[in-house]
């Protein structure tokens, strides 16, 4: 689908985009935090509760059967989208954060004191803190791949960190704070060469381009539905079957067991082993609808259009005096982090918010990056395929107004 030609009709699919703030049309540039939700996804949630709400997997009755089918059908959609080998490799969680914790918790069993794990300086807190907790529990040591001024990982430093004590490497595919696309192909290949597993945090990648887990040969790939036109409360964990089979269960409860007695409990097969309790059934089904929606537009088209917005916005912002953009890799997507002179990002954010522009200011859950640049935070704008050139022009005007008020 040609996005530019169809932008009106695409925008009409998202009811929230017609919101007014202080008389201005809402401009939503906080897509890296969460994407907006198209009517088809909203409707699928209503339909679920109006026609088939029921607990899944456990019932002999029809509602339960229909709900189970739809739920499992959503798994199939993600399996196909990611090109996984089988549906057992797709685990539904409550979000990227949950997905990462599921894996990091499982690695307690595989790590000994002195083992090493590797993270990058570009990570979201969700891909740092669970591993710090893991290190505390196991005595493993965390090594950090540093970045350069452009906000790119220093691959040569990464290669130096790798050694036969390295057990797992976890980096994001795209940095949420800077938009850098990391060279995960190299990271995966080199890590595998010394026998380390790799987890890729794809929270900021999955909404913007195609992911082929088979081609990547990645061990774990995680992301959130709410950044992918889906609802809140759903995460996806892709794991290679061999890994998911080795990994101990994370939560105990209904559905994840085979037999329970007080003497001995045996666990269910994949994927149930990792889906204890009643899942977010409506949410998982709606996530599949969100994925369908994105695929109906096409990730190739999305990437192309968003790159166009990114280039345009970057050049327009740089025309404003005092603007400094953080993260200037040639390989980036959909995110611009910047500051203006000595003005605090919070001041800018507050003022342009009153003009109806939703941006994020602060550390973006990536404090190590802010520490690197020695700044309190940035203003971050992040795009989705429903954003427009006109919105960027309006942002530029609003920024100029804010700068005037603040100086």
């Amino acid at each position, binding site marked *: 689908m040609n996005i530019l030609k169809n932008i009106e009709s695409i925008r009409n699919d998202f009811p929230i985009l017609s919101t007014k703030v202080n008389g201005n049309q809402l401009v939503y540039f906080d897509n890296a935090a969460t994407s907006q939700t198209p009517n088809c996804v909203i409707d699928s949630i209503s339909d679920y509760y109006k026609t088939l709400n029921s607990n*899944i*997997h*456990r*019932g*002999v*009755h029809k509602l*339960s*059967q229909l709900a*189970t*089918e739809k739920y*499992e059908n959503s798994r199939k959609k993600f399996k196909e989208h990611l090109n996984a080998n089988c549906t057992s490799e797709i685990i539904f969680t409550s979000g990227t954060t949950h997905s990462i914790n599921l894996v990091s918790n499982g690695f307690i069993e595989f790590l000994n004191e002195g083992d090493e794990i590797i993270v990058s300086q570009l990570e979201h807190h969700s891909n740092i803190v669970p591993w710090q907790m893991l290190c505390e529990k196991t005595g493993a040591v965390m090594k950090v791949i540093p970045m350069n001024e452009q906000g790119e990982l220093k691959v040569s430093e990464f290669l130096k960190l790798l050694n036969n004590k390295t057990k797992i490497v976890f980096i994001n595919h795209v940095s949420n704070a800077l938009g850098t696309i990391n060279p995960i192909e190299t990271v995966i290949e080199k890590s595998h060469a010394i026998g380390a597993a790799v987890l890729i945090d794809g929270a900021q990648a999955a909404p913007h381009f195609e992911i082929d887990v088979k081609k990547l040969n990645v061990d774990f790939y995680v992301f959130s539905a709410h950044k992918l036109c889906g609802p809140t409360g759903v995460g996806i964990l892709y794991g290679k079957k061999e890994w998911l089979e080795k990994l101990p269960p994370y939560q105990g409860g209904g559905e994840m067991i085979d037999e329970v007695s007080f003497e001995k409990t045996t666990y269910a097969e994949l994927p149930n082993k990792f889906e204890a309790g009643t899942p977010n059934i409506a949410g998982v089904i709606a996530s599949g609808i969100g994925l369908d929606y994105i695929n109906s537009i096409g990730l190739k088209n999305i990437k192309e259009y968003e790159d166009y917005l990114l280039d345009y916005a970057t050049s327009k912002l740089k025309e404003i005096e005092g603007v400094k953009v953080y993260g200037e890799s040639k390989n980036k997507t959909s995110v611009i982090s910047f500051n203006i002179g000595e003005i605090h990002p919070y001041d800018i954010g507050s003022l342009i918010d009153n003009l109806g522009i939703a941006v994020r200011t602060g550390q973006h859950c990536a404090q190590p990056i802010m520490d690197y640049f020695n700044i309190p935070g940035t203003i971050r704008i992040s795009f989705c395929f429903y954003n427009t050139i006109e919105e960027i022009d309006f942002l530029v005007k609003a920024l100029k107004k804010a700068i005037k008020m603040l100086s």
Partner: protein
Amino acid sequence: MKIKDIQNQIVEEFDIFDSWMDKYEYLIELGKSVPIISPSNKKDDNIIKGCQSKVWLHADSDNGFVKFYADSDAVITKGIISLLIRAFSNQKPKDIIEAKMDFIDKIGLRQHLSPNRANGLNNMIKKIKFYAIAFSKTD
């Protein structure tokens, strides 16, 4: 008869009934004629997972033909397994392995079967194919 022909026969038989009640009554009736598994083979190894009711399935080979024996503690399940046995017992391993399995859908019963049951059904079919594969190697 060939597997395919038996399956068509079953589908035709069920076509006569147009209410789910009649279909279930017939299914229950059919369950009574399952070739019952011998007590010594009614062991945990032969239980099929994923069914709400217990299903035991055993097979042996008779002159290159596979013979199935089963039992279940639920009569509807017994009816379903009896259909499978009717279609696949006394057939050659190769034919079983290659057979299509969609006649259950055609009978219009799968829509009345829960996913637990459908899971169990898939596992029954899997087990039948496994037996056939095993015998195809020994023969």
